């Protein structure tokens, strides 16, 4: 195929050759400023200073630090992380559940037909929807950073940050779950003149309670991971401990914390799937 005769033969030439060439040229033209903007310098990895720092740090990873004093500290930080995730998810539930109830279209009386208070209801619903959007638009770690500046170091910032972001997510997903279920029982109740709360409890919740609970448990699992990460900006728990160990280049401590973190994530995963199976 690669003989000169084949190249000259128009039947064997790639019909898309020019297009392919243009695509590669365009990709390179985009990639060049991108690489310079992201300071793509692979050789920095092998600069003598960096190599010595990371080499020494990684060499310290083995053996992990197992001294009783550090293990006690680690145990406390792990409990703090778990408590942060649980308290944050509980507060998020308090924020998300009412907002989800207000915004869901499955319980909208004005969708059934014109009635009194239609405009006010529409305004309230739209306002709640925007509130949910603003709550979840900013990542939890940004909230955590802001709260740490306002309230000082400690788990309070992490709990509040989780409550805000996860409240927004829970509210949105709750509303969607309620809409995706069979809404006819709730609609029949509403048309028969029952209140929205009664329609929710007797028309929608029997069908959706499992899915709602399952999603909440899944969010708790995400909250465990998030509360470790939030520690890096000073919101307490395992992350803060890891940040300190890394800044002091203490490899043994860092590897112990990493091992505990991996075990914790695995445990949260197992616990959440067990809980969800119980609910199913």
């Amino acid at each position, binding site marked *: 195929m690669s003989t000169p005769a084949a190249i000259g033969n128009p039947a064997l030439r790639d019909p898309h050759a020019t297009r392919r060439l243009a695509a590669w040229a365009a990709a390179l033209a985009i990639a060049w*400023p*991108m*690489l310079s*903007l*992201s*300071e*793509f*310098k692979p050789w*920095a*990895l092998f600069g003598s200073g*960096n190599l010595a*720092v*990371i080499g020494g*740090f990684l060499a310290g990873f083995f053996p992990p630090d197992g001294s009783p004093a550090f293990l006690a500290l680690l145990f406390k930080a792990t*409990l*703090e992380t*778990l*408590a*942060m995730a*649980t*308290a944050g998810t*509980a507060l998020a539930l308090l924020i998300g559940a009412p907002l989800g109830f207000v915004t869901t279209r499955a319980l909208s009386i004005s969708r059934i037909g014109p009635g009194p208070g239609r405009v006010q209801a529409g305004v309230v619903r739209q306002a709640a929807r925007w509130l949910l959007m603003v709550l979840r*638009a*900013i*990542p939890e*770690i*940004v909230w955590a*950073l*802001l709260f740490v*500046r*306002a*309230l000082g170091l*400690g*788990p*309070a910032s992490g*709990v509040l940050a989780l409550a805000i972001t996860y409240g927004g997510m829970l509210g949105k997903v709750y509303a969607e779950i309620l809409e995706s279920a069979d809404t006819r029982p709730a609609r029949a109740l509403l048309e028969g003149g029952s209140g929205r709360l009664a329609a929710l409890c007797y028309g929608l919740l029997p069908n959706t309670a499992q899915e709602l609970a399952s999603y909440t448990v899944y969010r708790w699992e995400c909250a465990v*991971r998030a509360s*470790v*990460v939030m520690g*890096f*900006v000073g919101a307490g728990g395992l992350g803060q401990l*890891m*940040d300190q160990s*890394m800044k002091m*280049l203490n490899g043994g401590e860092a590897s112990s914390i*990493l091992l505990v*973190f*991996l075990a914790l*994530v695995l445990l949260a995963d197992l616990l959440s799937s067990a*809980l969800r199976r*119980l*609910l199913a």
Partner: protein
Amino acid sequence: MTTKTLPPRPAPCWRCRIALLLIGTAVVASFAYLGIDYRALGSMESLRLMGKFIVEFFPPDLSPDFLAKAGTGALQTLAVSALGTVLAALAGAVLALPASGRAGWLPRHAARFALNLLRSVPELVWAALMVLAAGIGPFAGALALSLHTTGVLGRLFAEALENAPREPEQALTLSGANAVTAFSYASLPLVLPQWVAYTLYRWEMNIRMAAVLGFVGGGGLGQLLYFHLSIFQQQQAMTVLIAMFVLVTLVDFASARLRKGLGPAYA
């Protein structure tokens, strides 16, 4: 009269009640363990301080100089996310080949173990490590993103490869093509659309992540925000926060539009 027609009362769900009780205990214990002083949080003094803190953020600094700086930060965030995703897609494809089981049992499990390890460490922890390896700056952020994303994409790529039919490749191999040719003309075209869809999806998530990687020194908007908050320039920080919000909202909007066109391949 009516009591006869009613169905029997369902048996109480003891397991659910016990689970609810345990969850309630866990929540109460968490609040108790954290011991946050809510009264101090809600006191007039701290509310006044909070109010003062919030007022300091306004008005945001909209001078052309700083807007240009924030714009560069946003572009850098985009570049970091794109570079991280491209590197991860390449590394993920390389690791997906053994992880899909086409090289035998041992390479399959070794590759899967490596992918799981890469995936289970969050981006921010990788970033803290990469700052030590590559120095503070956007390159460390890109490396951190690519390490975590390699784990995610490698697994997804391997699953796509395992689910693709084997017959086309076997046909080419049996008719005398070598392994590389058979793979790239028979299996690759089958999985490539799915691989591209996964990569685009992860890129979208990585843009959001790249915006905050700067908190530990990974460049972009996050580093700008961290810097200005550290030297108590709240107005500049507000501008960066707005830039983050705009970037994330734009990405959400664009991906929703794209997703409509791509359809089920995105799932």
